[in-house]
């Protein structure tokens, strides 16, 4: 699909499904995927919606129907208001998915998130560009440097807030990318390595199995990579200069634990009193601490949200007197269970092939029976 069309459809507020007359999904934007659990290649599981699609395609007329969706939150009963319209071709249709039946609109918070996504991102980019210009032209003045450092910290916080807002209502988290963990960790390390070199922090990674045979993750590669980047960056910052940071991978059944050993990731800054410089902090940097703390708080919230949507958990554990930070994620399959719809669809295929299977089995058995009949006649 043309990239501009994809972007346009992804940003449609109503969910959009593009389906064939037989109810096979050709395309589902993020909103539709979140509401229905459907993706390209899957079949509509709600019979009323499937019937409305068939009618709309046959009669080239729109149809309105309530259809089953994924239950979210405490409001609503999982039923969605859908408008089916004929598609651009003769044998397909579009399904526009509105609110859940019975659910409160909740538009106020959505509007806030939308405003952050659309109204803050561009000014943020402009502010970063201006900051780079100031830093380039600053000429080494201590005041300019302190000012630009402070503004930079603030922009980091706002940047994370924009990312957190962009997760709201986004279907990208429902991606079920197949993610090989070791290559992703290597990419993340490449991003964080400059920080580690600057702080003379060495990082050592252990795995129970070989690094090349770590269990695969399923989910949004973009956002899980962000989690690992945030956590590794925070761990490096939390590790004393010149020290060793040990990271361990453990496979516990169907879950992977990535353990940052003896490391107060995201927590180190919190333990300091407000306004008190951290040990080893540069002179004159006390003003940085509140925004550095806010950056890590939002970074933590961002990571917690992403990990929880993947069926995982961020937590701290105490082991042998050490405080370890853990990323706990399911492996081998996506967290979202598409089982019931798939079971129903597979059972329908079995039922539709059953007569042919039985006929085939009878034909296979018939030649074995024939000689006995002929001998007895």
């Amino acid at each position: 699909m043309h990239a501009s069309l994809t972007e346009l459809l992804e940003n449609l507020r109503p969910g959009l499904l593009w389906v064939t007359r037989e109810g096979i999904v050709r395309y589902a934007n993020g909103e539709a995927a979140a509401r229905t659990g459907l993706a390209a290649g899957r079949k509509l599981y709600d019979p009323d919606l499937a019937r409305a699609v068939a009618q709309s395609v046959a009669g080239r007329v729109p149809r309105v129907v309530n259809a089953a969706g994924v239950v979210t939150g405490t409001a609503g009963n999982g039923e969605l208001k859908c408008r089916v319209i004929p598609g651009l071709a003769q044998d397909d249709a579009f399904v526009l998915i509105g609110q859940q039946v019975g659910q409160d609109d909740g538009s106020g918070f959505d509007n806030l998130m939308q405003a952050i996504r659309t109204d803050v991102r561009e000014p943020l980019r402009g502010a970063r560009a201006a900051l780079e210009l100031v830093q380039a032209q600053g000429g080494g003045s201590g005041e300019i440097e302190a000012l630009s450092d402070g503004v930079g910290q603030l922009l980091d916080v706002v940047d994370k807030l924009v990312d957190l807002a962009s997760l709201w209502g986004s279907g990208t988290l429902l991606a079920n990318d197949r993610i090989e963990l070791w290559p992703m960790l290597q990419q993340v390390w490449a991003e964080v390595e400059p920080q580690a070199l600057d702080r003379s922090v060495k990082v050592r990674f252990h795995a129970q199995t070989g690094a090349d045979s770590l269990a695969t993750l399923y989910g949004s590669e973009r956002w899980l990579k962000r989690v690992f980047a945030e956590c590794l960056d925070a761990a490096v910052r939390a590790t004393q200069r010149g020290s060793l940071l040990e990271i361990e991978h453990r496979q516990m059944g169907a879950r992977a634990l990535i353990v940052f050993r003896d490391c107060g990731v995201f927590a180190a800054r919190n333990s300091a009193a407000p306004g008190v410089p951290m040990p080893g902090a540069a002179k004159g940097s006390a003003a940085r601490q509140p925004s550095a703390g806010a950056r890590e708080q939002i970074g933590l919230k961002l990571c917690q949200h992403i990990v929880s949507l993947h069926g995982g958990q961020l937590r701290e554990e105490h082991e042998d007197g050490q405080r370890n930070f853990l990323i706990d994620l399911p492996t081998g399959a996506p967290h979202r269970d598409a089982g019931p719809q798939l079971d129903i669809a597979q059972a329908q295929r079995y039922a539709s092939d059953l007569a042919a299977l039985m006929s085939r089995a009878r034909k296979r058995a018939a030649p074995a029976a024939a000689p006995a009949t002929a001998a007895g006649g």
Partner: protein
Amino acid sequence: MNRVLIVEDQSDIRKLIRMTLEFEAYEIHEASDGASGLRMARAVMPSIMLLDVMMPGEMDGLQVCQAIKGDPHLRHIKVVLLTARGQARDQEAGRAAGADEYLVKPFSPLQLIDTIERLMAPA
């Protein structure tokens, strides 16, 4: 009798596959996750494995397929990947892992039988 090993975490799908295969004369074995599927493959030496791709656990289907095809004692086993992942890049990943065939769920049981017969036919 030809041995078929079904490796699929969803018990209802496993049951449907078994019910399909019972129309034919196969010796059927089952496993519910990748690691136990690989162990069972080594133990029973099936002629063919029907292997789900996405299975919770330490090995998904593609990793099991790679292990089977990378082991000289097992690589003769035919591997059919059964998966809800129907995009071209997923099928390419299946081929790269060494799979002999790739069926997208929900698959036709008749097509499954035809696929098994074709793969088991003498070369």
